[in-house]
């Protein structure tokens, strides 16, 4: 069934695919992000309870959702790499990891910033924020483990195992932190939870979500191109590529 994917196990083909896909991710992504942000931040109606401070959800919610999805995508790449031994799968995994970590940080930062007008403090141990923080630690662990190995294929397998252990643990962590929160916070209703949301508020949110998703894909693709070049620099096809880029006949 997945035969069409097999050519991309080769770094050269994967590189070509990244080059092809990049503009389709980058420009629509930036466009949607700008559109969603301006719509949400300036034009969407005020929330009846929170006034203007709720507008941060147009950044916070997409980044929180996508921080989770990127981790799952990273784990899928790890699984493909471990089971089928694809170098490119591990390259994709490590391309995604820092992007996901930054998005998680954005989610944490905007979540905390939202807390200031809500609860008057810059940080609360809310269930969602705590889960995001732990997710950030999981990302950082994968990145740190990858960096600790000299042989990057070995690094990919090791970091891949941790990514898989992490992905199995993410639901467990999520529900245990939620449960812990109810124990210690009592019945505080968090505005982070799903309110019934008016359509005028929903559309900019969806557009921002799509925009951020495309943008994450674009940055991942850019990082993957770099990773492929970094690891395959001694191959003839990379030397040709560099020569063409430099515009002369000398190999670099």
């Amino acid at each position, binding site marked *: 069934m997945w035969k069409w994917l097999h050519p991309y196990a080769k770094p050269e083909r994967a590189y070509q695919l990244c080059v092809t896909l990049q503009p389709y991710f980058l420009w629509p992504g930036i466009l949607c992000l700008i559109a969603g942000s301006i719509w949400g931040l300036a034009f969407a109606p005020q929330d009846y309870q929170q006034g203007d401070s709720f507008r941060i959800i147009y950044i916070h919610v997409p980044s929180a959702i996508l921080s989770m999805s990127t981790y799952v995508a990273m784990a899928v790449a790890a699984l493909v790499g471990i089971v089928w*031994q694809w170098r490119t799968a591990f390259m994709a995994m490590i391309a995604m990891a820092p992007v996901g970590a930054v998005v998680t940080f954005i989610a944490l930062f905007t979540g905390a910033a939202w807390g200031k007008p809500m609860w008057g403090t810059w940080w609360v141990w809310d269930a969602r924020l705590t889960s995001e923080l732990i997710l950030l630690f999981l990302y950082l662990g994968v990145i740190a483990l990858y960096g600790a190995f*000299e*042989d*990057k*294929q070995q690094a990919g397998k090791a970091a891949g195992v941790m990514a898989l252990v992490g992905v199995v643990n993410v639901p467990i962590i999520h529900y245990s932190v939620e449960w812990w929160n109810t124990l210690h916070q009592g019945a505080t209703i968090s505005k982070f939870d799903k309110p019934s949301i008016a359509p005028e508020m929903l559309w900019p949110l969806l557009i921002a979500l799509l925009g951020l998703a495309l943008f994450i894909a674009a940055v991942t693709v850019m990082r993957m191109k770099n990773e492929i070049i970094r*690891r*395959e620099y*001694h191959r003839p096809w990379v030397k040709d590529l560099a020569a063409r880029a430099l515009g002369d006949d000398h190999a670099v």
Partner: protein
Amino acid sequence: MAGLAADNLTCIKRDRVLFTDLSFCLSPGQLIYLRGPNGAGKTSLLRILTGLSAPESGQLLLNEEPLDKVRDRFNQQLIYVGHKAGINGALTAMENLRFWCAQHSTDFIAQQAYDVLARLGLVGLEDVPVRMLSAGQQRRVALSRLWLKQATYWILDEPFTALDTDGIELLETHMREHVANQGAIITTSHQPLSKQAGPFTELMLEYRL
């Protein structure tokens, strides 16, 4: 073809290609002397043969069957002596050998072990923690496994390290006897094998940039 066959092995370590499409066969009654400069991939090749490392591509066959399918049978017929001695410093030589034989499903008879250690010049040192022995003596304890387990295939990585001339002679003689009894050995060595080791085939690995 009977024996351990390598079929188009390619090895990449740290993103550097060590060798591509390497094929050869190690048959019973054969000694292969694996040669090449430092960094050519000799240790990597030996580790691929044992199964500790996986090749980038290619496969291994044992008596025409894929090695993965008959891994257990191969391991029973294999002794690997690598760079690391495989003995624990806090245990004595006898204890190390006793546990190793238990792990490898080999009968351990204390008297036989004492005899082997004696032949290797370790009389009186059998029951002290191995870390108190010299490097050469520790290497001899590691090599004593070659006398304790009946196995066809010997994969030896620099077995002569730290051995003195007596030790080298002892090992080479034992290797010749093993090959004469239809054993198969592949080994590397910094110094060339002498006549003591008997007839051998050379396998050369080039250093690739």
